[in-house]
């Protein structure tokens, strides 16, 4: 092969479009290209982040130590009860186990943990090599389940079987097993709803619970923020499912509709506009007049409370340009609207695991000239942020230092943030965070010694 050092990776072309410029379809939902420095994680990670917030479960990683270390207490998910989920348990496979198999070790690990922590629920995650050395997770788990008379659920999350989305699916399958009623049980429906795709980061699910309570909506269980074994078991009883994080939950919602006749609607509690619309949609879907009235009251009260605060920030932020690179598509869509609320236009938007339908919506929402890209890498993020003159980036931990090194402001939308971004409270936090970074005096210092600052420069 001749050496081509032009700096562009041609196989990535199909994953990038500019609105208005090219008509081609954006490619998404495939494996990352080798050597592209993808910002994505793996199947195991996808599964782990979805299931981890279940507070009273033992989360046991069957594999070598690294996978467990890097995901120990990985999310800022809060609990109102058990704290068991905040541990990282691993079978810590060693060379010998790779050669002779890790089955025995896994059985013994489950026995030891169940005895020590008296748990009712164990998730066993498979990592890359477990798929290769062929430990029969299913058999080991069901034997352990019988031995202890509790639920021991294998999560088929070998790292190489797909991308992070496959992990969401694996988590969905594990959850379906968990909520499945026994043969004899009759499901008695009630009027409650399940809330899917909120992981209670910094108490976000609690904020939404409070809204629903004020509207007279009964919440059955949240998947999976601050949830626990008993509550999850009751999931089939609900009348309606609402989904926040679609990427991780749409599969589960579809299955629950099929198996338990629970319809679902997609909602979003990011930003005032989406929060208000979602509360209305929930009330409408449940169809009770009193809820509709209470929803309007709540919206009016909360909007009045936060409106002037947001307007104050808007005045300072008007005209700035944002770049977005987050995990899921639905979050990205909400962010476009949320930025609009504070007077900011989105000039670049991308996700790790967005789906085709979501990219279509994004394409509709953004202005001409906005770059839309799937599974981006640092080189692309840098290039488009510079080209488009972005003043700030929304992203996770890995993207933050890049933004800062470019002299650009940054908003955390990562797993372990410590402030809620949901609902009206979250909208205020968001605006405040944008203000705190875009308008920080720090950028002024960059002008000393003749350095230009990204922010001051485009501002």
């Amino acid at each position, binding site marked *: 092969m001749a050496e081509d*050092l032009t700096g562009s*990776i041609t196989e990535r072309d199909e994953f990038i479009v500019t609105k208005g410029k090219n008509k081609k379809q954006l490619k998404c939902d495939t*494996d990352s290209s080798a050597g592209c420095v993808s910002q994505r994680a793996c199947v195991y990670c996808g599964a782990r982040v979805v299931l981890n917030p279940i507070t009273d479960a033992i989360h*046991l990683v069957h594999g070598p*130590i690294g996978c467990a270390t890097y995901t120990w207490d990985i999310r800022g998910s809060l609990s109102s009860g058990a704290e068991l989920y905040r541990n990282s348990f691993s079978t810590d496979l060693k060379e010998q186990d790779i050669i002779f198999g890790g089955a025995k070790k*896994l059985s013994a690990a489950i026995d030891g943990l169940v005895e020590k922590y008296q748990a009712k629920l164990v998730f066993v995650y498979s990592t890359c090599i477990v798929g290769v050395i062929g430990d029969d997770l299913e058999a080991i788990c069901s034997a352990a389940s019988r031995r202890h008379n509790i639920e021991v659920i294998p999560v088929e999350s070998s790292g190489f079987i797909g991308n992070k989305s496959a992990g969401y699916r694996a988590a969905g399958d594990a959850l379906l097993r968990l909520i499945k009623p026994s043969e004899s049980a009759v499901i008695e429906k009630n009027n409650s709803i399940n809330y899917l795709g909120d992981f209670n980061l910094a108490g976000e699910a609690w904020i939404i619970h409070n809204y629903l309570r004020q509207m007279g909506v009964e919440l059955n269980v949240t998947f999976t923020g601050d949830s626990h074994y008993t509550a999850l078991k009751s999931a089939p009883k609900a009348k309606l499912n609402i989904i926040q994080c679609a990427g991780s939950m749409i599969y589960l919602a579809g299955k629950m509709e099929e198996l338990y006749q629970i319809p679902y609607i997609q909602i979003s509690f990011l930003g005032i506009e989406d929060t208000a619309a979602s509360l209305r949609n929930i009330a409408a879907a449940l169809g009770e007049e009193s809820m509709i009235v209470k929803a309007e009251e709540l919206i009016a009260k909360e909007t009045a409370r936060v409106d002037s605060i947001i307007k104050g920030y808007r005045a300072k932020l008007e005209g700035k340009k944002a770049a977005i690179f987050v995990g899921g598509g639905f979050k990205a869509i909400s962010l476009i609207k949320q930025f609009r609320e504070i007077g900011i236009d989105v000039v670049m938007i991308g996700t790790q695991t967005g789906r085709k339908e979501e990219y279509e919506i994004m394409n509709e929402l953004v202005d001409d000239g906005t770059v839309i890209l799937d599974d981006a890498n640092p*080189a692309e993020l840098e290039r488009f942020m510079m080209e488009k003159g972005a003043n700030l980036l929304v992203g996770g*931990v*890995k993207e933050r230092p890049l933004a800062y090194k470019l002299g650009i402001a940054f908003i955390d939308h990562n797993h372990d943030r410590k402030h809620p971004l949901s609902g009206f409270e979250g909208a205020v936090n968001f605006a405040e965070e944008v203000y705190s970074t875009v308008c920080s005096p720090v950028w002024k210092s960059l002008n000393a010694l003749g350095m230009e600052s990204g922010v001051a420069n485009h501002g």
Partner: protein
Amino acid sequence: MAEKNKENIFFRNVNENPCNMCMPMGGILALKGIEQSMVIVHGSQGCSTYMRRHIAEHFNEPVDVGSSSLNEKGTIYGGEKNLRQALDNIRKVYHPALIGIVTTCLAETIGEDIERITGQYLIDNEMEEFPIVTASTPGYGGSHFEGYFFTLKRILMQLTEAAEKNNKINIIIPNISPADIREIKRMLALMQIEYVLYPDFSDTLDRPFAKPYTKMSNGGTKITEIRSMGGAAATIQMGITIEDGISPGKYLEEEFGVPLYNIAIPMGVESTDAFINTLVEITGKKVPESIKQERGRLLDGMIDSHKYNFQGRSVIFGEPEMVYGVTKICAENGVFPAVVATGSQIGKFNQLVTAAVAECPEESKILIETDFSHILAASKEGKVNIAIGPSDGRYLTEKGDIPLVRLGFPIHDRVGGQRLLSVGYTGTMMLLDRITNTLLENKYKSYRSSMYEEFYQQG
């Protein structure tokens, strides 16, 4: 006592909250200290993403690391295609001067022959001179600590040639902070010593803000220098705990006859003296007045705080080399090292630590290849009142109410891990102050209530 303990832990089936990371992580860190180098992690996407996130969080720097993104096909039919593609893409985007390839659990389990693959790649691309360094670092083979030194050794094995004798001293740097590395350079400059520092991530992982941003950062050990390390006058390796099999210094001695001085990280009076004395011994140079002054100031400070320190009972954990260094400081200052622990499995560690704590009034508990649940249990038993080590030790604060002095890698819940200075006479003083002040803070915080509880109503 330590032996018995070791036995228990060798046969444990589950690791409860890991105190170590996996081998390729160490490989990445080592390679980040080489000029204009890029790393490819050969395995599924997740491994590299996790490690990047960990490193980025600690250093607050962009950490671009490629992955061969092995998928199902690559796992079944071999990952050669992916690895070649990764090499192509990394070269296109980054134009590195050296590429390091570290393997993962997955690549090792499916038996990838990376040396053959890369050899063929270089021939096919007519670039036989280009340095590609391969290191086999299965995550189940050891911890990140071994991965670090082993990768350094692999780089030497593939780059270093028989060179003409020169006056330089090879200084082999363990995983200390960029600030520490800079301090060592400062001391060497004061002594007017010529050296090759290997690796040197003091700039690459702690680079100054500058415009324009470049994908690769400046700094790092020069490749030409690495090639000529075989001609050095001597090697000083700060790796007293490591085994010969992974010792870069040992390799240089055996292969090129470079005399090896294996010393501890210069932390504390004795270890820093050893460093300075070794330099004197090798070069015949005099110790400059300013260094003597620094030493005097450290002694002065040690006297100031010695009585406070006597109330300290510490648990020290993390990478063996760092733990040994801190143990020396504690022992020298009367902070009793009640528990000395590492997640790595290093044979020499036990013996070295035992010698370091020989004069302590009580016997220390030494834990090897351990996890945080064992460390917590031992700490409670040992009535520990201060913890010293990386961020994950916050578990000890949360569960055991033991205040934590953050040190080592990774520090992901505070800023400034890269700026912590703890080596040399000056760094030792700074670390010691952090330790003493944490003890004092805790004492002042609670002495009113604890005295009340203990004595009120009794007399």
